[in-house]
């Protein structure tokens, strides 16, 4: 069973729609015991970083999420991915979960439209089980104005948008983050969610 953390994130239902469509057992939860007995955890997220961290703190689950991230697969999606890093400066400095070293800042380019919205191609720089059986080119759906800045070793794939935007990141162990929305990225996105469930088995 995958625990989908319920702290009021806007894409919670579309993530669950996708899991239901794939017949992947999941529970939407803010209960620490449920998270502790889950095989894997998904941290959804849409909106602004500080508000989302505040909501997550309000559920009292920050420590539970961090403890579970050390022993079972965790996937952060969109803002949920950004929350995996040390901090963000969206609307002022705010600490993240520090599961992957790095920080989140506004997309720096002045030459492109912000938000980065639409289908962009993943440039894959590391093998990852999340990408198993997915044929290239892999286009995924992005909607965001802030991006992660982290070491190349944490990046599995990036998207080129007048600069390198980390798209799929990892701590090298159990923690994964997708800046794009796999639940809105068609067949290939669904395949990634299916692969995540396989990793969790």
């Amino acid at each position, binding site marked *: 069973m995958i625990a989908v953390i319920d702290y009021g994130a*806007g894409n919670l*239902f*579309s993530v669950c*729609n*996708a899991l*239901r*469509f794939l017949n992947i057992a999941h529970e939407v939860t803010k209960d620490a015991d449920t998270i502790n007995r889950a095989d894997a955890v998904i941290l959804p997220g*849409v*909106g602004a970083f500080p508000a989302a961290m505040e909501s997550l703190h309000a559920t009292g689950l920050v420590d539970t999420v961090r403890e579970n991230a050390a022993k079972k697969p965790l996937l952060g999606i969109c803002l949920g991915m950004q929350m995996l890093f040390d901090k963000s400066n969206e609307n002022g400095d705010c600490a993240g979960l520090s599961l992957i070293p790095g920080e989140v800042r506004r997309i720096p380019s002045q030459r492109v*439209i912000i*938000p*980065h*919205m*639409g*289908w*962009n*191609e993943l440039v894959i720089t590391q093998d990852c089980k999340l990408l198993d059986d997915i044929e290239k080119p892999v*286009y995924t*759906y992005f*909607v965001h104005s802030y991006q992660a800045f982290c070491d190349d070793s944490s990046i599995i794939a990036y998207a*080129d*948008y007048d600069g390198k935007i980390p798209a799929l990141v990892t701590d090298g162990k159990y923690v994964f983050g997708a800046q794009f929305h796999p*639940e*809105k*990225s*068609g*067949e290939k*996105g*669904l395949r990634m969610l299916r692969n995540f469930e396989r990793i969790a088995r």
Partner: protein
Amino acid sequence: MLAKRIVPCLDVRHGKVVKGVNFEGVKDVGDPVACAAEYNRQGADEIVFYDIVASHEGRGTFLDVVRETARQVFVPLTVGGGISTVEDMRETLRAGADKISINSAAVRNPQLISDGAEIFGSQCVVVGIDAKRDGNGGYTVYANGGRIDMKVDLLKWVEEVERRGAGEICLNSIDTDGVRGGFDLEMLKAVCARVRIPVIASGGAGKLEDFATVFQQTDATAALAASLFHFGVLTIPQVKADCRSKGIPMR
């Protein structure tokens, strides 16, 4: 590199798909959920649902269509028609829409754009605009599906739409809509020159090359069509293959 998007639009009336030509002569065809699933299978980059009746009584049926589609289609869904308050936006997003599209209500009450962007985020607020040549070298904005001239200058309106925080503009040319003679390149160029937010081209697609042409000649980031795809004149893979062969990035 960001791909250009091909967006099929499904006009829905009483829970069924319809398509009007120049907004007149509507005929009933098809189940919207099945149509959306088919477009998803064909590789649509986004799907638009438009409630053309937009009556208070019919709202529940329409949102059921959105809800059911969101359960089986995993590309972004944009939903428009009859959205005139923040509450309408909220219930449409809750039904599973990723973006809401407002048109006449935004012209009558521009604050709705600001409120929507503030509460739900710019990325989910699309402002749909129906515009027409005014006969004096300019363009004017229409409401109620192209029936009422709002006497609002198009280029001033798009600037305000952007300033108020809309995430995208879907520009429908009444002059070319339903005529199948190609998108309104002139109107699109004029609008794209005024704003930095993405502009979706709508109205007039009639043949394969029209899509590549709109991407080559204007800065539109997406192209929308309804009847062309709906009646199977062209399929999405055909359109994408043609664009790709001309060097336009496609998913």
